[in-house]
Every structure is written in C-alpha cells, then in structure tokens.
C-alpha cells in the first residue's frame, strides 16, 4: 500500500516540525494504523553544518570484510585496525587515515561515541572497534578526556563491560541509572506524540547530545529489530538519544516508522552526528534487539562506514533480508497476523514469529526527511574484502 506523505512546519518555526502522516515505503499485507502527529522540538537557535546528516558523502557506503576479524566469537583488534583504516580512506578518498578522520573531527572537539550495548553480551558494539575509534581520534589530536563513550542505559554498558578495556581518561557515560531517571536529559529538546494514550507523551534528548559533545560518531550494530525491522544507524542514534521511546510500539503495532527518522532530524543531533561506523562483526538476523540466542547471530566480520545513515541502514536491511531468505525466515516486511506472538520465548527461538508488525519503512521515511538516500539504485555501495 502506498501512502501519501506530507510534512509541514509548525508555529515553532525552524525548531518545530510536525508530521501528520509519514509512511514512505510500501507496506505489505495488512494496513497499519496511521501515526499520530509528531512534534519535534529541537534546540534553537542552532547552526547547521555540512557535516550533519547526510554529511559529506550522501549515498556512499563502504563495506569492509575480513573473515579473520572474528574467530570463535572473539574479535581481533589487530584485524579490525586495518579494516577501519582502509574503510575511512575509501570513504573520504584520503591517502592517510589521519587525514580521513580530520575531515570530521578537529583536535578541539569533544567527541561522543554512541555505542549500542542493548544486545549485550551476545551482540553489542565491539570494544575492539571502539578502541580503534578512540585511537584514531587521538591520532587527530583529540585528547582522551574529550572523548565520551555513551549510551542510554548504564546497566547495559555494565553487562557489556564497555568501560574495562577503554584507555584510562576516556569518559564513559550511561545516561539513565534506573527507572524514570530524567537527570541526564535536556527538557528543552523533545519529540512529542501520543501513540497509544500513554501518560507521558514526550521523549527528551540526552544532555550529552545537546550540551556535552561537539561531534558524534555513531557505532551501531547490525541486527534485526522486532518493531523497527532493523536497528542500525538511525535507530541507534534516535532511540539511543531520546528517553521514553518504547512507548512507540505496543504489540502488535509499531510507530517506530516514522518516529525514528523524526528524532534524527532534531537539532543538534542531526548536525553533530558526522560519521557512522556500523559494527557488523556480528549480525543478528532474528530476535533483535535483545536476543542472546546464538543460533540467530552470525559472525560476519564486517564493518560499514559512511556519513549517510539512511544509505547504511538500507544496505544493512538488504543484508539481513538476504540472510533471512537464506534461512527460510519470513521477510522483515511481512505483516502476517499468523506470525504474531505474545510469547517472548517463542519469539526468541522461532524466526517465523514476531512480537510486532515490523516497520522497516522508517529508513525510507528518514530519507524523505532529508537524512540520506534510501533508493538502492542511488546508493554507492563499495565493497572491500581484506582477508
């Protein structure tokens, strides 16, 4: 079903954006309920930058694979190092990795590294890759004290042991410590919508985004998501920067499309997110984002680099769709009532089952919001195989 899409500004001027209907991609089978109006109240005034999404290289995705990078579930930092260097040089056209990084980060910047520990311990941003990013930032001249590794949930970072192997001096921050902890959020920047009659209709942006950092390097993982279809760059950034986001999906329905993309348009998130390094060491093709079932986690040994989160997520979506086809699992686009279960255990162990009607259309919707290119025919997908 094709749906009309229209966006209009609100009385909040440049700071506000109201989406009444936004559903860019053809959904299959069942019609999904329409999303309610979503108000995005970004930081104002805010100076945009060409580095902001979709960034310096719209539509370009560099995929770097090395089969030696993960062996028996151990990631090798020695192998990840040249993968990241080669990928950054390929992305930017620079001859040296240092020059490639310097296109995005200056020595005076405070740089946030947004990781994804939500699938920990089975699948989360690899510490080996995060360490390589830290070292690359150091090489550009960013002092360790000006590097902040962060996510929303402290306990997930704890389970992932995100702190232990980072160099001393790097700041490691979990935004929320326990339920209803708003202390790490900026109450002036929010998205507002009433999806299911919830009592709190606002989601606030993390203060580390609005005030704590100058640039953000986004380090999502590659995995399917029971509500959004996939959790890649856009979801890691949007749902990882705002609180109170689980309210957007209530079984079996999900409004992750269009909320994920809308959140990524909010300033200053959009401008500060200058680079996306997707960790495809492991690929979750069913049970995401929280599964711990190794049967559905492939050790793929891949890194994706780009500045365009929409293009990156499109490539990720294709890869997971391909894997699901190979395994005989239904498409992420399928909206078959027979596939829906309310039993978590059944969902985690049966790839034919799901908790929600997935909404991978959030990627194309984000493309229509100007965050990047979703049309596969316009994506410049460069593949590198190092070993």
């Amino acid at each position, binding site marked *: 079903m094709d749906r009309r899409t229209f966006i209009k500004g609100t009385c909040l001027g440049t700071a506000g954006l109201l989406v009444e209907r936004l559903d860019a991609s053809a959904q299959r089978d069942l019609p999904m309920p329409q999303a309610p109006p979503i108000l995005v109240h970004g930081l104002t005034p805010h100076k945009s930058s060409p580095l902001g999404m979709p960034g310096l290289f719209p539509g370009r995705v560099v995929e770097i694979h090395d089969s030696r990078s993960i062996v028996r*579930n*151990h990631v090798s930092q020695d192998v990840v190092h040249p993968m990241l260097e080669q990928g950054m040089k390929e992305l930017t056209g620079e001859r040296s990795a240092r020059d490639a990084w310097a296109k995005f980060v200056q020595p005076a910047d405070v740089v946030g590294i947004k990781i994804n520990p939500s699938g*920990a*311990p*089975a699948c989360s941003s690899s*510490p080996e890759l995060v360490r390589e990013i830290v070292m690359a930032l150091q090489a550009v001249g960013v002092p360790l004290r000006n590097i902040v590794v962060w996510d929303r949930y*402290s*306990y997930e970072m*704890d*389970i992932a*042991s995100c*702190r*232990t*192997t*980072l*160099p*001393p*001096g790097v700041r490691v921050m979990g935004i929320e*410590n*326990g*339920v*209803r*902890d708003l202390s790490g959020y900026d109450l002036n920047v929010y998205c507002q919508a009433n999806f299911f009659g919830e009592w709190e209709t606002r989601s606030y942006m993390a203060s580390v985004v609005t005030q704590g950092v100058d640039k953000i390097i986004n380090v999502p993982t590659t995995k399917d998501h029971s509500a959004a279809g996939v959790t890649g760059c856009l979801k890691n950034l949007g749902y990882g920067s705002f609180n109170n986001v689980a309210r957007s999906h209530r079984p079996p329905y999900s409004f992750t499309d269009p909320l994920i993309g809308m959140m990524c348009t909010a300033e200053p998130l959009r401008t500060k997110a200058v680079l996306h390094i997707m960790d495809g060491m492991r690929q979750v093709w069913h049970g995401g984002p929280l599964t*711990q079932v*190794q049967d559905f986690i492939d050790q793929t040994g891949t890194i994706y680099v780009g500045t365009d989160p929409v293009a990156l997520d499109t490539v990720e979506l294709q890869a997971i769709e391909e894997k699901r086809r190979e395994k005989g699992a239904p498409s992420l686009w399928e909206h078959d009532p027979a596939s829906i279960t309310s039993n978590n255990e059944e969902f985690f162990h049966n790839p034919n089952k799901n908790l929600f009607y997935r909404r991978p259309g959030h990627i194309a919707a984000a493309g229509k919001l100007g965050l990047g290119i979703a049309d596969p025919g316009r994506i410049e997908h460069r593949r590198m195989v190092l070993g």
Partner: protein
Amino acid sequence: MMADSTQTPATVEGDSEWITLLKDAARSGGQGRRPARPPSRLRWRLRVARAIRSSPILRNGMLYVAAVDGNLHAIDAVSAKTKWKFQAPGKIHGTPSFSGNAILLGCDDGKVYAIESETGAKVWEAASSGEVWTSPVVRQGVAFFGSADACVYAVNVSTGEQRWRRQLGGRIYSTPFSAGENIYLGCGDGKVYCLNAASGAIVWSTPTENGIDCSPVLAAELVLIGSEDFYLYALDAASGALRWKYGTGLGIVSSPAVGDGAVFFGSKDGYLYAVEIRNGRLRWRVQAGEAVTAPPVFAGGTVCIQAGGTGALDSASGKLLWRAGLGGAVQSTPVLTETGIYLAGMDGELYALE
C-alpha cells in the same frame, strides 16, 4: 576446598557480619554456614533508590547500602528504618567495606570516602584520577583500591594518606584480593597482577587475551579469576604460572566463589559453572539467566546467585533448590545470615527475606 585462611587476613567478626564484598577479606561468602534454607517469607522491602549495583554490607544489625545515585544508606536490618544517609558527590557502583568504625566507599568522582558508621559523617577522603568501582580492601592499617585511572592505591585507613600508588596498563574495576605479602587483581589491560602489599612493586603479571573486570579469589595457592576472553584462569599464586584455564561461551566478570573443592562462577553466556579446583574439570554447569555477571555466594553446600531473580543451587550437583523472582542484579550479591537473606536489586529495591 576452602580459601586458605592461613594466608588470608580474614576479618570476620561475627556470624552476622558481612563487612565487604563477599563478606570478608577472604571472600568466604557463607562458608561454614549450614545450608541456606529457602526463604519462607518477605520480612520487609524498601525502595532505596532508582538503582543499586553494589552489594549491601552488614554489621551490628545495620545494613549499609550504596545506591548508584551516590547515597550511602544506613538501614536498621530489623525495622528497615533509615538511620542516616551520606550523599557522595558522584555515583557509587562499588560495594563498600568496613574498616574499624568507618565505612570506605569508592565514588565516580575519583575519591574513596571514609564515613563514620554511627553518624554518617565523613572522616577522610583519598583521591584518584578516575572513577572507583572497586571495593577498598583493608589489611593491617592499609586500604587498597583500584581506579579507572589505571592505578592501584594504598592509603592509611585512619587518615586516607597515600602510602603508595602503582600505575598499571589499563583501567581497574577488579577488587584486589589480599593474601600474605601480596595483593592480586585483574586489569583492563588483560593482565592479572600480583603486587607487593608494602611497596606496590609488581611481583608478577600474567596476560590473558582480553580485559578483566572480575575480582579474584585465592584458594589452594591458586589465583582464580575470569577474563573477558571467556576463560577462568587458575594461576600459581607464587609465580603467576598458568595451572589450568576453563573456557565458557562468553566473557567472565562474575567473581568466583570457592567451596567444597570447586570454584563457582558465572559467565555472560548465561551459565553458572562449578569447576574442580584441583584440575580445572567441569563439575556441572546450569543455565542461570541470560547473562550471569554477579558473583555467586557459597554457603554450606549451596551456591546462591542473583541473575534475573535470586536462586540457590546444590553445590555438588547444580540442582536448583529454590528460586525467587526478585533481586535481579548486575553485580550485587546476597547477604546470608543465620536468620535471613538480604538482597539489593538493580531496580533499587532492598529485600529482607527469612
């Protein structure tokens, strides 16, 4: 097999005292206690904070609970009434330790605070340059603690004055184990270190293949410690030489407990393991949760663990004896007494079971 009490300056001062991580300096947990019986009822439940990561400690009928929000709470174990609170300037993630009448407490502001246990007044503070998640270990007038600034510190327990500082190769979240002339700990650089307790000099170091969060225990002259490289290591305490190692499915941050000749530990692969100390062979393994990160507690034939909820298993067979759907924890451990069990949950709740 029990921890070697001739080597360890255990400071157990009574059956109902639980004065540091895993009870005492020997990390003896509930050793010597009769098998922990299934709790029959909830005596009380108290909402302490939004989140608690550390374990409660207990002395003279008072529970001391550090919440992530930086508050140290002194709570009457019978009435559940709060006697005092101390607000630290930063978050608290580590289990406090008693030293005399003072409670030592690491904080994310980089300091260790000594708090008077009767009043909650600050006695002294000792500074480091990184957050302190480790429990201070007290021995012969000196408190040892590791910091995320990659240094191990030794300070005077009466004044907080620094005795020595030893820089290692990575962040430190592993609580030292003190025995004989030395202290032992793991490090984010992947090495297990043995330091001379008097000088801080490195006696030996042994590498593993990834960083170490886990806190070690000594038993049968072996240092037992897990690594993010998926292995539990048994190292010769005198030389650091590898005696054996046992592999699991994911990283090990759960600090081991020893008893009945076995070492018990959890893995992030979701299993609780019992491995024979003498040869590193598996005795049993049991699925205990999605990821087991908290340390188990051994108590007279049973092993208690907070993973998802709280459970107790037979130490010989791994058979589940009882399970309660409360007290899910990332690092907190049960406090076992003759009359009951105290649990702190990641959700900020404190429970008294009997």
